[in-house]
């Protein structure tokens, strides 16, 4: 009996090994991974291992097997994502020891272009701390307060209002590192309160669910553990817009590119993903008002609320914008300047220090 089991065992291992070898050779290879949002390794004699792992047969199934196993043995932090209650996947917050560079860049910028407004948006982990299965001090609130205390700008703190309004609607996607349109709305309201201007109420908007099939970037880190969710957009009736993607020479009449709803990264539908410079002209307004928003991708779902108040909304993404923002401000008669970043991504890419 034992001998037979031994033979079956050896046979089993051999079948798996040779099977995977064979399937690797004959299976078709993809260049791009939608799941991971990156190009897979190309064949390189010096890095065969990476090529093999990237193009391994049933790669995504193997990865979700690992994630599920870790989840079932009780892990709540997998690949830098906390598995929270209510199917929440919450990216960890990473501090950054170069934060003073950010302070310097913004203060210098504010010295030349006075009246700069700054809004650092907290990440899901701070607003959804109650969803974590273990109480952790993420230090994000301390970070934001530190930055605000060092800045000479007009700072808009949205932590409390986001925390207080998180019950009714999801202010952050469960499967993505971004905030939802609801989250962006709360921040917009807070911004306009701060500027003593009138803002629209939630009931003024036509809210449209554009997909219920969204699995965001956090879900990519823990494949196998996510459940799909909705994306909603907020629009006012009878708004006529002209959206100009300046560097791409592309003009449309919508803030959204619905083609992205057929792809993995559906959040990219807001403002057609990230562009160096976008100008949005609201044809219903003729008061000559101009606002500049300097933002990362969090701004993409925030801008739709702003365009209803200004004749021209200018949107700059410093990751791609090559020249001086100050020159742009001078040339375009801009009165309001808002810097809007979520903390985690601002810290991880640091493009904000290119501000000049």
């Amino acid at each position, binding site marked *: 009996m034992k001998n037979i089991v031994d033979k*079956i065992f050896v046979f089993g291992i051999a079948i798996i090994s040779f099977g995977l070898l064979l399937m690797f050779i004959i299976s078709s290879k993809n260049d791009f991974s939608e799941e991971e949002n990156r190009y897979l390794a190309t064949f390189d004699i010096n890095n065969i291992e990476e090529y093999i792992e990237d193009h391994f047969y049933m790669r995504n199934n193997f990865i979700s097997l690992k994630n599920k196993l870790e989840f079932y043995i009780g892990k709540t932090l997998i690949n830098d994502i906390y598995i929270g209650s209510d199917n929440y996947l919450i990216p960890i917050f990473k501090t950054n020891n170069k934060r003073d560079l950010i302070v310097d860049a913004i203060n210098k910028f504010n010295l030349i272009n006075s009246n700069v407004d700054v809004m650092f948006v907290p990440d899901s982990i701070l607003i959804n701390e109650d969803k974590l299965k273990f109480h952790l001090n993420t230090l994000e609130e301390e970070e934001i307060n530190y930055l605000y205390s060092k800045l000479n700008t007009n700072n808009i703190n949205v932590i409390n209002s986001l925390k207080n309004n998180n019950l009714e609607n999801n202010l952050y996607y469960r499967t993505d590192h971004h905030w939802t349109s609801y989250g962006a709305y709360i921040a917009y309201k807070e911004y306009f309160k701060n500027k003593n201007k009138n803002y629209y109420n939630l009931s003024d908007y036509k809210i449209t669910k554009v997909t219920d099939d969204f699995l965001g970037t956090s879900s990519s880190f823990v494949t196998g553990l996510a459940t799909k969710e909705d994306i909603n957009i907020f629009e006012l009736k009878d708004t006529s817009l002209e959206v100009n993607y300046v560097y791409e020479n592309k003009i449309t009449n919508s803030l959204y590119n619905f083609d992205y709803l057929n792809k993995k990264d559906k959040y990219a539908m807001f403002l057609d993903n990230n562009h160096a410079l976008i100008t949005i002209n609201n044809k219903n307004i003729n008061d000559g008002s101009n606002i500049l928003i300097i933002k990362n991708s969090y701004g993409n779902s925030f801008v739709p609320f702003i365009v209803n108040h200004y004749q021209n909304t200018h949107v700059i993404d410093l990751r791609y914008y090559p020249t001086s923002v100050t020159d742009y401000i001078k040339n375009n008669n801009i009165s309001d300047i808002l810097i809007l970043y979520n903390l985690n991504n601002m810290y991880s890419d640091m493009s904000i220090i290119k501000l000049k």
Partner: protein
Amino acid sequence: MSFNSLTFLIFFLPVFILVFYLFPKKYRYIILLIGSLVFYLYSGLYNFIIILSIAFINYIGVFIINKYKKKNVFSYVLVALNIITLLIFKYDNNIIFPLGISFYTFNNISYIIDVMKRKVSYEKNILYYLTYILLFCHVTMGPIVRYKDIKNNLLNLNPDFNGFHCGLKRLLWGLFKKVLIADSLGILYNTLISNNTSIVSHIFCLIVFALQLYIDFSSYCDMAIGLGKIVGINYNENFDYPYLVTSISEFWRKWHITLGNFFKEYVYFPLGGNRVSKFRHVINLLIVWILTGMWHGNTINFLLWGLYYGIIIILEKLVLKKVLDHLPNFIKHIYVIVILLFGYIFFSISDFNDAILFIKGLFSGSFIDNTIIFYLKENIVLLIISIILCFKLPNNIKKIYENNNIVYFITNLICILLYIISISYIINGTYSPFLYNAF
């Protein structure tokens, strides 16, 4: 390629085994040599040229020495040449450190001295000699192996099914330990070392390091021994439950055994061992332990680490042994664990100031913090399994149930499942989603 890579497991090994067993046993050593050349060449042409040059020089050196009289003098010259080469590569940071040179230099030295002392006759067939030096089972991380121990195996590579099967299981056992346990401990350690805020977190950090180091290295040796069995070569064990010992001297007889034996055989005994005056004995021990420290790395912390063990072992031999003999076992265990954990500070932290900072952290600051409780809870299963792996329990259970057919069948099934899970863990290593679009 490392044993825990898919290149090795899915590509190299199956093809190698197939070809190896298809050949008649007379020629198998050639397949083994070709396989080893391919395996080592994969690590780069630079490494490959160096190992071959060193091997040729040693082969020709030993060959010539044995044609002439005055064997001893020339043998020592050749040994010195090997040591100097190793020292140059170790201490000149401008040149890349060749893969496995610490191990194959010691193999060469053992070969030269064993031939000189007539413990083994010199190998006329260069292919056998090259196979011994380049053998993929041990070339990168040991175990250190003497030619006399595997010569007979090498001349007759004929494992039966049972040998093959045991080898395969041992290889997989090592793979599970490495991929599922040791690497997870490694990730945990890296997280902890950068989040060290309380006394408990410092201690926890050291415990995790101790578990990781043992499971990582012993898993590698499991894989090497398993691979050896697959091709018909019997290696000596390199670990014998080192964390269960009751003194530091005993620990070093059970930890990295082949290295300890090398130093004993080729340094300690030739210096006179313990059959000399007390003072000379102390000096001999110090020399061995400074060399052991230097062998592990080229930074000052490894020297300190070696010295630390040298001093403790001297103290044990002179005074502590008498005290320890009168103490109950559990106190002896605590004594060993405390000494080992403290020693790992120097082993794991290469910067001296950082090590001092770590020691300060062990004795000051808050007692416990929230983060450490989170990581403890988060990794409780991993930690329990890791600790069990340090005990004889898994082996004892295996012995009890070996004759129960049903249990045997189920454990084999689990083993196959673990193989699949291990592959998923290896793939996850490169799984790196980008938050931003790939621009």
